[in-house]
């Protein structure tokens, strides 16, 4: 969605780069580049090794490459870069304005939803509008909760493969975590059934359920989808 792909790996930088802030070297008198303060916690798109846990040297060297490609001119930030907590408007207002403006383009509004994972000690909150597809969402979620998930199968991390329906139906019980969401009607649905834009519009809350809890979910979800179509 934005010119922030280049900054993704900054977030995983070990020594200085905890997510959420600028990691430029402390040169006084230099303005902090606007783009450098973009928080990309939620938008990790290209992380092949992310699922293994410790991200090390590859990442550090990749960062120095990425850094040089970032625009540093503070007066001309990338037009669509999203800074966490900016502008300083309550998320309540962002959500309300989002659902009020029927005619505005969806890119102008936010859709914050809570994300919980069974067994994790705390919840997260993400803006669904920051992703363009289930794949992006899946990547973001698996990175956000990477320390909690322990995939049964090889490198697959226990996250369900959205795009492969048959796999979903066949193997849902064997997965560790199944992403489900609560829709506008208050029903709990399996993620991945409806087109992405419809999902963003109807999703109120996300829950990564333990696979065993999700067995009963899929058939109902299918029915609901059919009745909607």
């Amino acid at each position, binding site marked *: 969605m934005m010119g922030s792909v280049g900054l993704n790996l900054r977030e995983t930088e*070990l020594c200085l780069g905890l997510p959420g802030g600028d990691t430029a070297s402390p040169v006084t008198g230099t303005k902090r580049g606007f783009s450098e303060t973009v928080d990309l916690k939620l938008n990790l798109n290209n992380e092949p090794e992310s699922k293994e846990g410790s991200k090390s040297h590859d990442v550090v060297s990749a960062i120095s490459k990425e850094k040089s490609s970032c625009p540093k001119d*503070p*007066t001309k930030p990338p037009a669509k870069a999203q800074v966490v907590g900016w502008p*300083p408007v309550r998320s309540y207002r962002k959500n*309300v304005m989002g659902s009020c403006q029927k005619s505005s383009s969806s890119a102008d509004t936010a859709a914050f939803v809570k994300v919980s994972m069974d067994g994790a000690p705390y919840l997260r909150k993400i803006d669904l509008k920051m992703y363009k597809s289930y794949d992006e969402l899946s990547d973001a979620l698996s990175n956000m909760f990477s320390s909690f998930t322990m995939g049964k199968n090889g490198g697959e991390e226990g996250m369900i493969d959205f795009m492969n329906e048959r796999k979903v139906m066949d193997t849902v019980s064997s997965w560790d975590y199944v992403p489900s969401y609560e829709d506008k009607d208050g029903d709990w649905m399996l993620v991945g059934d409806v087109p992405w834009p419809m999902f963003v519009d109807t999703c109120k809350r996300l829950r990564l359920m333990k696979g065993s809890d999700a067995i009963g979910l899929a058939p109902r979800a299918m029915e609901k989808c059919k009745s909607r179509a």
Partner: protein
Amino acid sequence: MNYFPDEVIEHVFDFVTSHKDRNSISLVCKSWFKIERYSRQNVFIGNCYSISPERLLRRFPCFKSLTLKGKPHFADFNLVPHGWGGFVQPWIEALARSRVGLEELRLKRMVVTDEGLELLSRSFVNFKSLVLVSCEGFSTDGLASIASNCRHLRDLDLQENEIDDHRGQWLSCFPETYTSLVTLNFACLEGETNLVALERLVARSPNLRSLKLNRAVPLDALARLMACAPQIVDLGVGSYEDEQDSESCLKLQAAIRKCTSLRSLSGFLEAAPHCLSAFHPVCHNLTSLNLSYAAEIHGSHLIKLIEHCKKLQRLWILDSIGDKGLEVVASTCKELQELRVFPTDLHGGGNTAVTEDGLVAISAGCPKLHSILYFCQQMTNAALITVARNCPNFIRFRLCILEPHKPDHVTSQPLDEGFGAIVQACKNLKRLSVSGLLTDQVFLYIGMFATQLEMLSIAFAGDTDKGMLYVLNGCKKMRKLEIRDSPFGDAALLADVNKYETMRSLWMSSCEVTLGGCKRLARKAPWLNVEIINENDNNRMEENGYEGRQKVDNKLYLYRTVVGTRVDAPPFVWIL
């Protein structure tokens, strides 16, 4: 030492209601301390972690009203992760165990649960007033407990909370015999409302003064409600959705005409602009108008509405009003005291229709203006200097230029001089938010001139530690300082540790402070809680042995406290 009996002194104290004044009274002598203690009715605790409920009860055994604030202000903008803290449960439990006759509870940015609300509703026979602002963690089930059990409830005021709406029947939980409702605000609830129960409730509430509906209340229901409650003073209209049915509109007009006490109007989430004219007959009495969620109302409908509101003191609006619209406000609303202009386009890419011209027009036209919150795309020093000259009475001045680091768009200079003019002219300034391109110079001005400043918000500003030092050294009355994305580091943080004892709290995120610096601060100041909010759940910082030099890219939040480290911190919060 007293020349009067205690009862007389206590009676005199009854006239002193401000917290600060009562705190001052209690410092005069032991006898006054004791009298004041037992007679304090309203307790205000600005940081729930600065004190414990037990100590509160020991000091003030007889209070009736408690105000508590939890999370730091930047939590409003998603900078504080879920689960950080601010739980009201221990407070409710402690108060329930004691014999205090709680009548009012006001919470801001706290985590409330249904269990807590249930306990609250059962523990205090005379409970009258519940005000929740920006809280979360509860559902309509909790509201049902309040409705069912609080027989003397007067106010249920829910402002911008995150409430799990179970679409239940909480409104019908008010007993049929219950008639004491004065304030009902459920505008933030998202789900459907039981309209029948609502109408019956309003019909049997002769003292109802403030009613704020959620978006699920359609126009015809609104008309019936207003017909039941012509004494209404404060109305939140809910969705006000377009009804092709003109009969509803007529009924609404008739009902509105009877509402001669109406002074405050808000809502209009999905407004049908052409129905706004129904409110024109009452506009001349309005003192407060909040159209900041009314994205559908702009242009001529908005202007026409405002032209009728000559007595307006408070206006909250979207920037779609434009500079021209603000000029109309400036020429119409001569009594205006507070203005807030919110951005319509929240992703900062589009055009906003307000510029520095709108701000200047308002400052020129509204001599009583003392509070402003203004979101805009551009600003100039010249405009700010003019505003300062026109309005030396600002108490609150918050300017948010949407693009960080944006300079004066005419001269390309930093906006130091403009803000400098504001702080120099406005001798009573208590709250300030700065934005745009700013160097250390602006902080020099703030430190020098803003002698009454209590709250300062800084984002993407300054060059060196000197900036922060100017503020810490100069602003003697500073209580809350919140800084993000600015190059202030350990030297500024540690320069005057004792300063923090005079402040409620300090927030620094994405600045240049290091973990080592924060640890040193924590060692030097045991009366402070120094918290690092570390959003990544593993402890890579310490593992890699860089801790001394490592920047705290996450968040530093420190606050004075008399009860030491809190025990409810989640694992991602380190208390040093």
